[in-house]
């Protein structure tokens, strides 16, 4: 009994902070999304904000766009991370240095990766300048629109710059510690290289891939900095639309902003729950 009390006592500061701030902020936002805003004299609870945004074309295109950048950046990051970890799994000279370079983007803030992509892929960016020097393009408008574009290519590239090592560094570690024994057994049983990848190496990587893909999807879905730096005016990422509505001088838009953030939360939580369910049932 004493032990139990002590445990909870040691956990309580963290729980109070997280439940208080995270839970408090979420619930307050939820209440306001239901139009309960005493500050401007609204006391009755209704679903007007949700109705309004669900009929709003801008919101729906933002929702689709946000799904695209989140799914796109997650999918392409995983594919690239798998390819790289297959290439890096064995010992070789200077592997330590290569892995150091691989990890390099991890601690770099997203704002800086956004600025790097902006300077690199903008229509008057570094690559456009080099192509102009080589005579491949004549004016900057001939360079494909990758930044501020409606497909979110720049956003996806900037996210991938950090996501690939986030997924991949762990995969290299997994393949390295597993060693070659399973693979050799598969070879002796006559498995070709595709089958060795598909039935031996991929299953070992899958648990780590699914955990990290949930984390990066959730991050991309709610990220603000990179879409702010690299996004187009239409469609905008959901986070940008929500923030703009929230900071609108007309306080009436606040409930819509809160409704959007509640929808983002529900989508992310839904994905986390589905993932938890699947990962506890499916065996790889």
């Amino acid at each position: 009994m004493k032990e139990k009390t002590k445990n909870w006592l040691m956990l309580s500061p963290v729980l109070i902070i997280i439940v208080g701030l995270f839970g408090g902020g979420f619930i307050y936002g939820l209440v306001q999304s239901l139009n309960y805003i005493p500050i401007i004299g609204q006391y009755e609870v209704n679903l007007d904000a949700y109705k309004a945004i669900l009929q709003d074309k801008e919101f729906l295109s933002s929702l689709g766009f946000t799904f695209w950048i989140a799914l796109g950046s997650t999918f392409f990051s995983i594919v690239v991370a798998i390819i790289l970890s297959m290439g890096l799994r064995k010992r070789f000279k200077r592997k330590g240095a290569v892995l150091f370079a691989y990890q390099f983007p991890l601690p770099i803030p997203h704002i800086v990766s956004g600025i790097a992509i902006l300077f690199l892929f903008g229509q008057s960016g570094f690559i456009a300048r080099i192509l102009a020097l080589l005579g491949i393009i004549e004016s900057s408008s001939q360079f494909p629109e990758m930044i501020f574009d409606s497909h979110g290519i720049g956003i996806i590239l900037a996210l991938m710059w950090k996501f690939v090592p986030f997924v991949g560094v762990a995969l290299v570690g997994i393949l390295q510690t597993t060693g070659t024994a399973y693979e050799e057994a598969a070879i002796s049983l006559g498995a070709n290289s595709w089958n060795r990848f598909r039935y031996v190496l991929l299953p070992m990587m899958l648990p780590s891939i699914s955990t990290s893909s949930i984390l990066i999807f959730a991050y991309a879905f709610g990220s603000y900095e990179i879409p702010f730096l690299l996004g187009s005016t239409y469609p905008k990422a959901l986070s940008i639309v929500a923030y703009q509505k929230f900071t609108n001088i007309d306080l009436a838009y606040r409930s819509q902003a809160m409704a959007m953030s509640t929808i983002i939360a529900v989508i992310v939580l839904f994905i986390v729950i589905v993932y938890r369910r699947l990962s506890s049932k499916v065996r790889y």
Partner: protein
Amino acid sequence: MSKSKRKKSGKNGLRNFSIVYILVTVFIPFIPIIIWSFAFRWNYPNVVPEWGLRAWKYALSQKSIISSLLLSINVSLTVTLISLCVGMPAAKVLGTKDFKGKKVVETIVTLPAIVPVLVVIMGLQVIFIKINLINTFWGVVIVQLIPTIPYMIMYLQSTFEDYPVSYEDQAKVLGASTMVTFFQITIPIIYPGIIVASLYAFLVSWSQYLLTIMIGGPNVRTLPTQLFAFIGSGDNAISAVVSIIFVFPAILMLLITSRYLSGNGEKKSGGNEV
């Protein structure tokens, strides 16, 4: 013989591709930032700018940038220290004990690392206005605990999972007080974990933009909020200089952690900042 030779070169091909891919994609994006920071003027379509130290001189003489840098250090150190103090006991319980409700606690603690802060910050802004924490240093510090504590706990918990609890019992049998046990047994054993966890927490706090701008407003101008302002004003050279100052702690951290993490080689997935 020839078959095995072909296979070998095929595998090296993928390896060489991976190495080149990493070196190109990781380092080339920094080149324009570095060039911009030393550019006096850099008109399109020139690949090489007119060089000059204008941006560096401006940044290092501008009070607003220096004070932002100091404020960022101050905020992030305070946030790291608080999350270490509250995170350590919790991580110890989670790492060394098994109890009813542990899974729930772990879920609650990791939730802020998964769910975007955007979904709580609007509600929090309204609350912080009411309790007069808006536009204050402490308001920003408190709100930054949300993203930092989960990383602090994830890292410290994995450290405590290898922690020999029996050493504490032996110290107590020998008559050591709780304080002596903590400083002479616990800290010396887990300090590499403390360093790595603190560095990550510092960096998570260091990178926060949205939380800071929404709670700190115009009063608490940390480095990322300044950086956004410079990018918005279209001054690429100054933005590049501030970016370089801004990534400095990250690179420092990478050098330190690669020293502390080398040796055990394995990395816990999910412990990294996304």
